[in-house]
């Protein structure tokens, strides 16, 4: 049965010679695309444990697109298409595409620079302009952030490269700064002792670097101070909230109340008779 099938195919190909070209050409295209997929998968598996996720993605896509273009060129050559004609058109097309895609190209190149410099990685929380969020992906042309209120923000790589970025979670510990005002009549050393006791009592406030109490200057109705304590980055929000509450309670218990803005009004004596 197999022999009969092969005989029928041979007859068919002899009858229509162009069919042979088409069949082999298509087989070549399919084979090339399959090879591109297989090699890109192999590249992904080989790299994913060695380099970062975005570098793996770039390498995988490079392999796949290169092989796909190569397959297309070879298929066109096999089908007898004169590629020198294409070369001329490609030159014109390149200029046109270049002008049209200069922003994309800039984003792409910016992305490569960002990958090399690595100011942040997926999972970091960054602040750029007015936007603060967790980096959920770093792609070829842009990055994506998830804000704290669960919005997705897409920022082009070119913008990232040109902007000031604050990586909130880069270092393992962070300092919590609490600014408050104390009444003028307050004993500052006593306030300092109370606040330091609050920090020492909280096990998630680091013993070292030690908490810091600093006077920032005299305000209109108060002495401006800053109390700083360090904590592990993952505890930042919860410890900060706890410190606000505990400091207020400790100061109140110590007889130190936050001052209200106040004015001294001097009224002239209007009862004097002439």
């Amino acid at each position: 049965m197999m022999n009969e099938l092969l005989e029928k195919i041979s007859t068919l190909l002899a009858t229509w010679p162009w069919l042979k070209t088409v069949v082999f050409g298509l087989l070549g295209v399919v084979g090339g695309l399959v090879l591109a997929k297989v090699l890109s998968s192999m590249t992904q598996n080989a790299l994913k444990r060695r380099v970062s996720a975005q570098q793996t993605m770039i390498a995988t896509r490079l392999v796949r697109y290169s092989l796909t273009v190569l397959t297309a060129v070879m298929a066109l050559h096999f089908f007898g298409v004169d590629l020198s004609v294409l070369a001329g058109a490609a030159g014109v097309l390149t200029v046109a595409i270049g002008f049209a895609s200069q922003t994309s190209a800039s984003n792409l190149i910016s992305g490569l620079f960002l990958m090399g410099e690595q100011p942040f990685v997926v999972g970091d929380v960054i602040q750029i302009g007015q936007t603060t969020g967790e980096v959920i992906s770093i792609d070829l042309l842009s990055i994506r952030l998830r804000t704290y209120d669960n919005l997705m923000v897409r920022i082009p790589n070119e913008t990232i490269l040109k902007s000031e970025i604050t990586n909130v979670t880069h270092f393992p510990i962070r300092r919590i700064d609490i600014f408050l005002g104390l009444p003028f009549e307050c004993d500052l050393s006593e306030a300092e002792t109370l606040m330091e006791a609050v920090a020492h009592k909280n096990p998630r406030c680091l013993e070292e670097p030690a908490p810091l109490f600093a006077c920032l200057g005299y305000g209109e109705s108060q002495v401006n101070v800053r109390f700083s304590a360090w904590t592990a980055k993952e505890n930042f929000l919860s410890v900060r909230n706890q410190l606000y509450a505990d400091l207020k309670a400790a100061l109140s218990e110590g007889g130190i109340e936050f001052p209200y803005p106040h004015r001294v009004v001097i009224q002239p004596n209007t009862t004097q008779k002439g």
Partner: protein
Amino acid sequence: MSETREELTTWGTHSLGVDQTYKWEIGPCSLWLARKKGEIRVTYKSSDDPFALTSGFEPDAVEPEDGKTTRFVDEAPTAPLSVVPALADRAIVVRLADLLVLMPGQSVQLFVGSQVWVQVRNGKQLLYEAPTFELSQTWFGADTRSGELCYASRTQAYLSTDDLLVRPARALTALTIRNQASSALEVVRVKVPLGHLDLYQDQSGRLWTQNIRARWTDDNDELTTEVGDEPRGEGKMTRIAEPRLATTRLRRALGLLAGGR
């Protein structure tokens, strides 16, 4: 099958029947272990005093309402449970109350205490663990960019164990520092890498870790340390826990922070 009070007050494996509740007092920590139908309940409470000497046991206890309870599925109601100590899951940093200076050629042995963790195990499987007292965290490193998150010890380093009480919730580490440099060494604070140490118990019930040896030479910016031998306590030493972190049997370089004058 009930155990005697004496057997139950020690660390180790215990038989706990269904609808039985045992209570342990381990220093500042109180632990209730209850077996109900299909579940094991572990309730934990800790007091404010890390140096508490309380050590006791109470069979037929009642779980408190204000404790922190964790429940586990129990598929083997007759399987015994182990209540054992373990060293902390991070290194501990001891800041010496007074500066200690070692002149060239001198050495000193310091004894440093650390809070232990209590573990409940079902065979080899760890069900539950908690510190006997929640320690303050601290940072150990040359700057705030690189370093290690550790626990801060609330004790100073001692030169002798003569006056030290046996505390059920604390383990002692003997740390020998040798100054082999040509300048004096100021020991400011000491990091004890508990994750790399075995835990032992002597016959008086005191918990010990492996010894640590440290050298300061002219070639290094920081002390070179290595895990030493078994500790020497009262009577025979029994190893009761292995290091949390896998380490080789070769020299293990760890770190201490000190400054040369």
